[in-house]
């Protein structure tokens, strides 16, 4: 009996082996490497020896400070105005080589708000990284619900016995099969500011009322354009997962529902939705994780620009690690991303736990 157990165990290991080795070599080891390297000053290219620097990389990335300033006043004590706003002393005089404010050296304004008479500035050591964090969260907060909702809608649409329904399933799934790099390139043509398809379409529909916009070249539209394109690209994948969830719901429940005279909404609310519970949890977590990894679209379409409006955490990690040859900084960003994603997943698990 025991030999049989060992034998089947050996077969099991043989089957799992390749995957275990690959995952250990290319996921688990680099993961521990990244944690280790983030505490050093490791460079991509350097003859200098690597040194342990403690938390310096994290301080450089996450360092924040505030400073409250009073507006400039003239000799009589009246607030000086410039362009209709009170004028403040230049921040530059505090953040550069000012011996009275050593803790502000090298920081930059992230944002500011007025409070009473004065104005409070929030300064960051790495403003670009702060913007990257904010952009990534905006991306996740929009993509997760919208993509999941659209995918569910599509799944309900194609979960019908109609002639040629497979054609629609294939069409909706198609963008998933195409490489994201190709999709991004195509969409940058669509979003083109002068002769792009989207501008032509909007112009034609509105008889020229809507002016041509440089969707990716404009700080206020670039992130939105990438969000829309990303939702479109991966919606088919999640549609298939919803579809598989839909098909596990027993038809007898629907039969019973129709005998009881349930409306379409009641059928969805009391039969379909409860049956999709586990699928919904899975999809939410998968979309969240994928959305945090936003990189290829940025790399191909905007490179983080214009004016940092599309910087993201992963793009910053790659840009730092390889572009700027700072492996330790890139590793620190990866570790920060890991902590963020882990805590969000744990919160999601807790919120969607089975309540007894």
């Amino acid at each position, binding site marked *: 009996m025991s030999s049989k157990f060992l034998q089947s165990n050996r077969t099991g290991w043989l089957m799992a082996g390749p995957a275990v080795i690959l995952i250990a070599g290319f996921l688990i080891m680099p993961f521990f490497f990244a944690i280790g390297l983030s505490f050093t000053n490791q460079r991509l*290219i350097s003859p200098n020896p690597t040194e342990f620097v403690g938390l310096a990389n994290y301080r450089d990335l996450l360092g924040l400070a505030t400073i409250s300033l009073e507006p400039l006043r003239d000799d009589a004590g009246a607030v000086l105005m410039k362009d209709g706003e009170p004028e403040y002393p230049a921040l530059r005089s505090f953040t550069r080589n000012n011996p009275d404010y050593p803790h502000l050296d090298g920081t930059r304004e992230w944002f500011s708000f007025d409070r009473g008479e004065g104005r409070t500035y929030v300064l960051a050591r790495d403003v670009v990284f702060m913007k990257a964090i904010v952009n990534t969260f905006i991306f996740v907060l929009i993509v997760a619900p919208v993509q999941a909702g659209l995918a569910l809608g599509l799944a309900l649409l194609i979960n019908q016995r109609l002639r040629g329904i497979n054609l629609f399933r294939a069409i909706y799934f198609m963008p998933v099969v195409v490489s994201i790099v190709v999709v991004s390139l195509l969409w940058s043509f669509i979003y083109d500011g002068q002769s792009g398809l989207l501008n032509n379409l909007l112009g034609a529909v509105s008889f020229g009322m809507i002016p041509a916009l440089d969707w990716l070249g404009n700080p206020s539209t670039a992130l939105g354009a990438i969000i829309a394109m990303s939702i479109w690209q991966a919606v088919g994948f999640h549609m298939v997962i919803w579809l598989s969830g839909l098909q596990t719901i027993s038809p007898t429940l629907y039969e019973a529902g129709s005998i009881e005279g349930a409306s379409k909404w009641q059928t969805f609310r009391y039969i379909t939705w409860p049956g999709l519970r586990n699928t919904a949890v899975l999809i939410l977590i998968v979309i969240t994780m994928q959305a945090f990894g936003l990189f290829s679209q940025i790399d191909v379409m905007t490179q983080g620009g214009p004016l940092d409006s599309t910087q993201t955490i992963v793009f910053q990690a790659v840009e730092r690690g390889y572009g700027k040859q700072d492996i330790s900084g890139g590793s620190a960003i990866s570790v920060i991303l890991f902590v963020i994603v882990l805590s969000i997943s744990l919160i999601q698990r807790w919120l969607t736990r089975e309540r007894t």
Partner: protein
Amino acid sequence: MKSLNTLAGAMLASTLFAGSALAQTELTMWYHGAGSESEMALVNAMLDEFNASQSDWKVVITTFPQIAYNDSVVAAALAGTLPDIIDIDGPILPNWAWAGYIQPLAIDETLIANYLPGPKGVWDDKLYGIGMWDAAVSLVTRQSYLDELGLRTPTLDEPWTGEEFQAALDAAKNSGKFEYALDLGMAWNGEWFPYAFSPFLQSFGGDMIDRSTYLTAEGVLNGEAGIAFGNWWQSLFTGGYAQATQDPADRDSGFANGKYAFSWNGNWAALGALAAFDDVVFLPAPDFGNGPTIGAASWQLSISSTSQHPEGANAFINFALNPDNLARFSKGLGLIPATAEAAALTENYQPGGPLEVFYELSNRQGLLRPVTPGYPVMAKVFEKALADIANGANVEETLDAAVDEIDADIEANGGYGFK
């Protein structure tokens, strides 16, 4: 027994044959030109010629697309699998030399005695790389535009001043004939930005780094001259002279289609401009007060530090530098031959040729990008700063941030050997 002897004889003979075919020691070479057919045809012809010209060495080439080339070399260097010969983009050379990827060349000094300054890859007073050509940038326009707008034709001895350049842009803008007065090539990101635009900064009197110490950019990139440059740069876009985001198609054909009055472009695009109009002129960079400058240095040949056969690699590079070969590359690719001797052998660059001006531009205005291992990072920071300023970011703050980033990188690298 006899048959066995015959067999043994045959085997011995075949080994000998194989041996003689293998008498050439193989040298491996990596090149960045995959996908560029005319360039690879020239490189392959050069290799065939070298391999046939002597019996000691045989160069075998592997090519990469340019966009993946640097990453491949860095990865190979980390893994210890570099080939014998690599080619290398001029401004990155100090970085790779400092990191110990490449070794100094041992080539015939007489071959490079009359070389243009740009193609020589010098780091730490040693020659690590040598280019077969240089590249130069000029302000491309048409004589008829200059005449119509009533502008003086600037010369190498007397280039436009900053005011004259501004007046030319105003004239072109006010004529209403052009979509934009100036085509800067904003569609090309990456190395184009520091290569093409940092010379403007240097002409203003600033730089990407203080070249007297190479330890800080403070006061140089964000000093008075740097801020003046930044404001001027921003005014090009806010004033409507140039576009901050450009369609790649406009970069390729906008000037030929009459969209722009002036195009800031390299000599590699000169043949196309000449084909579009018969009165194209290539004007030198304007002088903003500190002398007119353009970027120098292009791709260069170099030998990896792990090469087992540096003497063979040096023999190959010596061979590549003969004037006929330089002339052939120039003819095929439109690049500037690295010596006057080779230039005389080409139709375009010989005295009186249509592109002759580029040879002199390269010779007289060419300025190397900062010769420091910190250049790759500096270039990235500079590119982002210029893109942000073009998109409307505050000039002083952006340049301050760029300085902080450059200085932090220098500090993190222990001064890159300059301390």
